[in-house]
């Protein structure tokens, strides 16, 4: 993979995503970008800013307003030699494409015994914390993660955003790429030339010995902040950032949990039948006897995403994470 601008730079996640698209389009003429408002406007979050100007209308273009059509056309283009990267404008606006995603994107390779691969990326600005109105703040990862045949990733910082998007575009399998909206403007020193993390690898973001916080996407900064606060209170929390939901990095996660014997899963999505449920289930299955207490979940409630004035109640916050850590039966045994 060639990367145009190596060296360290302070960049937002929105910028690194834009850079990843640009670098991927430069490296491979098969990469095409399309969706609603991704052309002249550069996307409502400006992730595709400048791509039409740089690569022309054939490589980055606006489409009619129809998500099923966008994903369906991308399927055809991927069948015929291209690597489409499509943008769903907001999480809930990917739902019209659900049939295409579940019945075709996820299954094409399998249906054709590997003859037809679909190297395509569906970018979804997702989750809340930005004061958005209804249908603009859904954490929809469970729908995709439950669907065999899709890769599902969610970066939590600008560097991973760059690396994971490059990896997603390079992948010969379809990737649902979840971009935590509230982290678009988070800034960080990024080394763009650094090796790209492979899809499927979690990372320990912070070492700790008392309990393990398991998080991904928008919940990672919350977990890190909670660990910071806990440290001040004398409790050492480890933080694991999944990065990739499917495939799941059992090895890294279970090793981390075994080290501490206690764990809390932190995620923004509603908890019922969710990715969090899966993490609790699979880690418990694998680490049962290493656990001093049941794994706790701090997730969104099982309610429609609330209006801006109430969204802070829905979002897993530092206090709620620390309460859950307190609940890990420190005295019971």
């Amino acid at each position, binding site marked *: 993979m060639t990367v145009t601008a190596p060296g360290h730079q302070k960049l937002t996640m929105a910028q690194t995503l834009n850079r990843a698209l640009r670098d991927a389009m430069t490296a491979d003429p098969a990469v095409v970008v399309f969706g*609603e*408002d991704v*052309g*002249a*406007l*550069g996307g*409502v979050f400006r992730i595709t800013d400048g791509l039409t100007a740089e690569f022309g209308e054939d490589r980055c273009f*606006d*489409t*009619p*307003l*129809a998500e*099923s*059509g966008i994903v369906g056309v991308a399927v055809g283009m991927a069948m015929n030699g291209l690597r489409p990267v499509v943008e769903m404008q907001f999480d*809930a*606006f990917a*739902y*019209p494409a659900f049939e295409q995603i579940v019945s075709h994107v996820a299954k094409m390779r399998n249906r054709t015994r590997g003859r037809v691969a679909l190297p395509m990326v569906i970018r979804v600005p997702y989750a809340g914390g930005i*004061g958005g*109105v*209804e*249908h*603009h703040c859904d954490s929809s990862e469970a729908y995709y993660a439950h669907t065999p045949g899709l890769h599902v990733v969610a970066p939590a910082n600008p560097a991973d955003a760059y690396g994971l998007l490059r990896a997603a575009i390079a992948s010969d399998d379809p990737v649902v790429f979840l971009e935590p909206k509230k982290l678009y403007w988070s800034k960080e020193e990024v080394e763009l030339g650094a090796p790209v993390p492979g899809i499927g690898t979690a990372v320990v973001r912070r070492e700790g010995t008392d309990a393990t916080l398991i998080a991904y996407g928008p919940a990672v900064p919350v977990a890190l902040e909670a660990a910071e606060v806990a440290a001040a209170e004398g409790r050492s929390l480890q933080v694991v950032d999944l990065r990739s939901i499917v495939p799941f990095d059992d090895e890294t996660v279970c090793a981390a949990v075994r080290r501490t014997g206690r764990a809390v899963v932190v995620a923004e999505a509603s908890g*019922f039948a969710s990715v969090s449920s899966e993490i609790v289930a699979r880690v418990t299955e694998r680490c049962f006897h290493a656990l001093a207490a049941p794994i706790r979940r701090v997730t969104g*409630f*099982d*309610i*429609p995403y*609330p*209006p*801006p*004035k*109430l969204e802070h*109640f*829905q979002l897993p916050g530092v*206090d*709620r994470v620390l*309460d859950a850590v307190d609940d890990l039966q420190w005295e019971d045994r």
Partner: protein
Amino acid sequence: MTGDAHHLLPSAEPVTLIDCHGRPVASTAYAAPDAAALVRAFAALVTARRLNDQAYALVRQGRLAVYPSSHGQEACQVAAAQVLAEGDWLFPTYRDTIAAVNRGVDPVEALSLLKGDWHCGYDPYEHHVAPHTTPLATQLPHAVGVAHAARLRGEPTVVMALCGDGGTSEGDFHEALNFAAVLRAPVVFLVQNNEYAISVPLARQTAAPSLAYKGIGYGVPGERVDGNDAAALLAVLGAAVERARAGGGPQLIEAHTYRMQAHTNADDASRYRRDSEVAAWVERDPLTRLEAHLRKRDLLDDARLAELTAEAERVATHLRDGLNRDVTPDPAMLFDHVYARPTPQLAEQAALVADELEREGALR
């Protein structure tokens, strides 16, 4: 089977009854609305414009999170509401606050969504106005369902279903029109073609001669109307409503208008269109046009205009006051209305929040 197909096609040019200079335009197909109707529409237009601009100002003042203004599209908004009878339903999009207000919804309640207090601030049954819908075109099948249910009960209800030019590209537009046609549901589909879907111009949205040509594919009559001409809108929409009420089935009407401002205040329209394009539409403004017409016919004078302006100001003040009042929504609401009765799971979750709040209170 195809003998009567051509009557489903729209007129070659949008129906206009009043030109840009306020002069009447002869039409063979539609009679001009009577003077009272025009005066009533104008009064509503004045308030509509004031409300649009007030809402926009309130965004700048931080009292509204975002506002998709219908500045320039007020004639569509007002006519869509005024042609309906009591008991008829309106299905608005996020851009149709003014239409909702013209059906009787309190503007403060109508803007609850955009203020962030609650998703829908009004009781949809009070004025038969459905919640503003954000996922594009998804309200259209609902409109068909409401209309069909009424028809099954023998009620005379007509449903006015709004969407934008961009919304016509969604599958739900297609399915709704087809269901309406097959069920002969009394729905008037009004597409406000304001030339843009956020940044995407109509030419990238469709290659059709005009959106009204979509009707024939469902066996639904299509019609085109000047969306900045309140008189034409009242005539065309009024005829469609009457036809639907009489059992004639659905109709598709494309109103040619223009989004004078950015998509919302959060949008930067300079990235995708030139100011000169916008400027060209100023002379087609729905207010000045109807004003000129009414003045020519001595249906309006400065004194009456001052009254109307004062009334508009009163409504704007009401909106301002309402939005300046801070509501602290009760977090219990989060759990109260997910189901008729909270599930055991939700009761547990509500208790957790209540406990947090109690502990917070105890800390203070």
